[in-house]
């Protein structure tokens, strides 16, 4: 039972008020894209033991989707941020680097 901070409501929210939405920062493919790239988009997901980026929706609150950076093995939360971004904000990346030097996730590090 995680507690995550909803960046829209500005409050700490219990997992029972949230809805998990899988991996964040998915690159979606459109018509005419390469079959392998399309397969990657549809079926291939990160499943790390360690730093991970996820989508969450504050479903029993403001209803907004937001993104969370956390460690899947220690449950540490590095931060939550707006879903309307293509990559994690620099301050969250810095925070992860301070705690997990050398971390790599997808194209981020």
């Amino acid at each position, binding site marked *: 039972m995680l507690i995550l901070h909803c960046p829209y409501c500005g409050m700490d929210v219990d997992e029972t008020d949230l809805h998990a939405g899988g991996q964040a920062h998915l690159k979606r493919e459109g018509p005419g894209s390469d079959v392998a790239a399309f397969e990657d988009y549809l079926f291939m997901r990160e499943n790390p033991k360690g730093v991970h980026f996820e989508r969450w929706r504050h479903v029993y609150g403001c209803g907004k989707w937001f993104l969370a950076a956390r460690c899947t093995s220690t*449950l540490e939360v590095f931060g939550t941020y707006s879903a309307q971004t293509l990559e994690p904000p620099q301050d969250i990346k810095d925070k992860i680097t301070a705690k997990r030097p050398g971390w790599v996730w997808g194209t981020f590090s």
Partner: protein
Amino acid sequence: MSTRLAGKGRLINKDQTVAFTFNGKHLRGFAGDTLASALLANDQMLVGRSFKYHRPRGVVASGAEEPNGLVNLGKGGKFEPNQRVTTTELFDGLTATSQNHWPSLEFDVGAINSTLSRFLPAGFYYKMFMFPRPFWKHVYEPFIRKSAGLGQAPKDRDADTYEHFHVHVDVLVYGGAIACLAAACAAGERGARVLLVEQNADWGGRAMVDGPEIDGMPADEWVKNAIEALENMPNVDMRPRCMGAGIYDHGYALAYERLTDHAPDQEGPRHRLWRIRANQIVTATGAIERPLSFAGNDVPGVMLASAIRDYVVNYGVSVGDRTVVVTNNDDAYRTAIILKQAGLEVPVIVDARVQVDGELIDEARDLGIRIETGKGIAKVIGGKRVTGVGLCAQAGEGAALEEIACDCIAMSGGWSPVVHLWSHCGGKLNWDADQAMFRPDPERPPTGHDGAAFVATVGIANGHLFTAEVLGDGWAAGRAAAKAAGHTRKGGGAPLGQDAAEGPISPVWLMPQGASHALRSKAWLDFQNDVKVSDVQLAAQEGFESVEHAKRYTTLGMATDQGKLSNINGLAVLSKALNDDIPNVGTTTFRPPYTPISMASIAGVAKDDLFQPIRKTPISDWANDNGADNEPVGQWRRPYAYLRHGESVEDAVNREVKNTRESLGLLDASTLGKLIVKGPDAGKFLDMMYTNMMSTLPVGKCRYGLMCSENGFLMDDGVVVRMSEDTWLCHTTTGGAEHIHAHMEDWLQCEWRDMQVYVANVTEQFAQIAVVGPNARKVLRKMGGMDVSADALPFMQWAEGKIGEFDARVFRISFSGELSYEIAVPAGQGRAFWDALMEAGEEFRVMPYGTEALHIMRAEKGFIMIGDETDGTVIPQDLNLNWELSKKKED
């Protein structure tokens, strides 16, 4: 024999006798007894039969770790199987029956398994029941199902009530022994909000029996003072009979309070589940004494040394007149000393260690107790009760040197800290070779949202066996937890403890060391699941080398006690068989709850009407008054059919279909999802959501749409209506309203952030009624208002106006192939509109129809039903719906 001692028993009140029955026998105990102590006081040592071999079994322990003493408690709506006699407090009128035997506890036919035990080794099921294949289904499985399981499932509805408490605290302390009291005092004094929970009814833990000195006073006096001090702190809440069940992510914790198990006539809920969010958690859950593995260690009368002195000190019960103590550590000498001081015989202390030295040993020797060092137990004499014991050299192979008559054996293989709660949320362990135990590794604690530790395990649970360390450890953890939660007020210093110095333990995993196969196959590791030393060795020999595999192959530690007594002994035997070190073999995973909790407490009040919210349409009450046979559709209850007096469901469905096809039917379609999609980009957005084009839909028209998930599978369908230039109304399936709304929100919020679109779920704002059948138009005309003629309102169009006096949106759409209007009115007018339609329709023999008639008619017409024709792996082409896929758009 076991009996009550005169003038003893810290917890019992001899002025208050309590009557109870065991297997129909009327027995008496005292207020304050547990069922176990009362049975022992009545010389009822035999309490059950073992799971696999049906061997006679007696009480082994005095607490939650008890593997054998499981009984059926109560009757009727209060019946519950597998209740531990050691944690069941005695009350007047208690009825208990023993389990797993036929025809009786004393004579059990199943005991034949015991003589066949060499043919029933570990993995027996896997080897035996492979062939011939058809035998599994028709012969083996029915037989195994019949013989499997302990106890019986209750037959009646539970007569009790249960509830949940939700609380937030700064510091949660699990346990009520001296380490916890020290921790709670330290945290409470500093101003932290503290919740202290203890699984037993009384506070103080082992110190109350073993009696060390604390702050210059006897332990019980110190505990009394500490309890008083804590009770006077308004920021500290104390709950006895409340077991720390589990620790989960980010400080979430469960505790299980047994409110009226000891007083079933008391008003109020029986169990309460505490759902706690704690900033910091201190667990001081003590340790569990390990049995020793020698042949015949499961014969009734062989018990844990600490349990035997618990029964003497707490309940004034002597388990036996002549007790042989067998040990590999100094602590068990306390049992011998207490027994001797109580006037009982201790013929010999059998110590596996060659060299023994220390205060307790001197004290035992001064009392005149014979001490045999370097010795072990070769055999236990007796079947349903110990009658004697054969000694041998521990270093040898088990040749009996001497037989000694006794009726009780007190065994101690050392102590295993209760690290369960530490481990639940990821805390790791270290093997302490000197003390022969797994201890919490403070470098690898359970971590919270900030990456810092939020659990501290202290006292004996942290591997500190001596009072001074226990108190210091508990106090420091309490102070640190309060500080971490932001409370830094000044408080007093740590209490000081003092007890007898002890010599080192010598790990003994098998007694004697070179025991033959015959002895090893009588040396029990897991009493509850009948696993012996020889079984674990066989598992290793057959290649089940991982501790998790060996566990499942042998069923070691898989019973209701979850291996509280057997785990460490089992994995030590496994590591020896693998010729590896214990830490390399590792432990199995500790999972919550610590001891079983009732299913009803998990449900709490969520049963019957409170099980889940039931959604009702404005017409539901009418339907229920008119024979509705409801079916659940999501959280809605929809009428499956409307039964008339004496009619079967099938007849009703046929009648409804026929009547709708021939004349007039009404369907309450209010449950269909209704999403308003509005904005300058709404058309573009809906083109992306649906497989066909919605932007080209003219105002005033309706269009059927399919919705697919990202990978092309059908997820929903419904009629889309163009309300105005920038507004569409999307109908979804009944079950789909919420998740389709969420799906649209997801794309709007996260992907097409530039689109100016707003989505609102107005499902409950409108009542919607389908008026269906050849007479549909006639009834609407009769009601008056807007023009619903084929010219004014052709198929797949809609109009807004009045039907009778009602504000209505009329959609000329059909899901049955019949002439059909779906009419939406504001929810508040829904019931009145339904009543008006029923009245106006009387001359057309109007009948409401349910979901089954709806299904038949749509199937006859060839329409699809999401969820019936789709299962999340069906694409539109599978259903011949190619025409629904627009070729005008790329994506």
